[in-house]
């Protein structure tokens, strides 16, 4: 696959994700708000509760700024501040996805960490990668198909994160160095 072709696949994915981001699921975010818990019984739990209030206040005042959704797992081999890269593998063949993951995890770079978005259930294999996995299963039920709604949700959660289509990077034979290089080049260009 030529570089031009990879880039066009990447741009197509980026456009797809941007379209998803525009369709905000405000009903969901407004309905499922987590309220602050009431003071628990017992001194130990009350102390913990008070520490949490202090931390939340510091966060509210902007003094403490924890990453709202850190993607580097505790058991990951990369740097805690590694840049996330979405590996978009929806509809990807099982064996091909393994090939992509094998290639990217063979020599992990500390500077970036993949977040795998997939509808493939190969979790025994995924567990050993040390990556954050976002699963898109199909569930029977009412309303908008679950996998579509969750896809929109994820697109919004990871908006602005560089995304690569798994099929294209497999076909192009990209490894960690190619992704690193792409990230650097991308940083110099306006986002598609």
């Amino acid at each position, binding site marked *: 696959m030529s570089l031009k072709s990879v880039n066009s696949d990447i741009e197509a994915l980026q456009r797809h994700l941007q379209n998803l981001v525009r369709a905000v699921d405000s009903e969901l975010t407004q309905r499922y708000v987590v309220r602050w818990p009431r003071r628990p019984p017992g001194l*130990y739990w009350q102390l913990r509760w008070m520490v949490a209030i202090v931390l939340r206040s510091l966060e509210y005042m902007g003094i403490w700024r924890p990453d709202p959704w850190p993607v580097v797992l505790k058991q990951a081999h990369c740097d805690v501040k590694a840049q996330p890269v979405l590996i978009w593998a929806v509809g990807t063949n099982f064996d091909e996805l393994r090939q992509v993951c094998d290639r990217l995890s063979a020599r992990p770079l500390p500077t970036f960490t993949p977040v795998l978005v997939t509808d493939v*259930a190969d979790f025994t294999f995924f567990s*050993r990668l040390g990556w954050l996995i976002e699963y898109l299963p199909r*569930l029977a039920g009412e309303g908008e198909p679950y996998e579509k709604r969750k896809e929109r949700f994820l697109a919004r959660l990871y908006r602005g994160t560089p995304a690569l289509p798994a099929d294209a990077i497999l076909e192009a034979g990209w490894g960690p160095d190619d992704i690193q290089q792409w990230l650097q080049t991308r940083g110099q260009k306006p986002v598609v």
Partner: protein
Amino acid sequence: MAEVEKRDLPCVVLFNINGSGMGHLSTCLAYANRLQGRARPVLFSLASAIEMIHEMGFEADYFVSRFWSRATAWAWDRQLALRLGMLFERVRPEVVVFDGTWPYRGFLEAARAYGVPRLVWSNLTLYKMGMRKVPVRESGFDLIIQLGELGTSFSTQREVMPGRKVTIPPVTLLRDEAILDRGNARDSLGLDRDGRYALFSLGPGNLKDISGIGRGLIDEMKKHGYTVVWTRAPISASDPGLPDGVVSIAAYPLVRVMRAFDVFVGAAGYNTCCEVLQSGVPALFVPNTMVSDDQTGRAEMVAKAAPAVVSPCETLAQRTDAINRLLALQVRERATPLAFDLGGAERAADEILRLITSARCE
């Protein structure tokens, strides 16, 4: 299950946390197994073993465990609430079951916001001394299911709802008829029918490094002429390097093939102990002391009633002694099923179905 059938049956969402092993997932799968045909179980799992759920015929979604994520508890709970909300709105559960020690804030808030008709908390009873009581009100649940240990029979602690509380006998993932006999289990694993095999399942090693103990025990077993079969836990973050001659397998649920083995060596998690009781295979328990449940207490309880020995196996002397005692048991007591009530999953499923009926009658 056919699409139409799925929609006709009442939906039960089973939420399992990710503990030190696969225990919470196994408990939810045990409930799902017994609900099958009478309800539509859908799992929301924090344990990274989704294909195991699908292979057993159930739908499931996954969310990264709080123990794996670096997010603050507050941020993680907010994500959890949103994702659970999405799932609830799709599958429309009539009952939601939380299996774990501490129902998460995000779980409770999602259940409240959606308006889950009936909420259940399923939890162990045997914890280590001095463990703090979790600050979650039982009255916030319609039903509390306490998983009983060996010798427990069904009992009701509190009759009134909300907060009805029952204790059930030990829970097994599979029914007895689903467990393969020695010959068939060996065939399914490709093991020699006349060989001598020891099954090792020391846990995923995500909380405790088991490689040192494991290697020492492997050496001891090999001295006695056994082939060691090492179980790779689906949720392990990494696999330990294994010495030459050790056969590695990935079998879940393990109990299905457990009778293939002459002896078992493993941690003393709730489900492992139930599997040992159900299979009747002589066992050496190496309790994991880094978890909140009292594995040592449980293992000792099982060892009084079944062919099992308990040892920390930290030193060479302890390992040698434990293996010698295990092999002596193995000579005396061939795998024979034990007469204990292990019908906890059936009782839990009945209780869950009763809740559905009561909710529909209101």
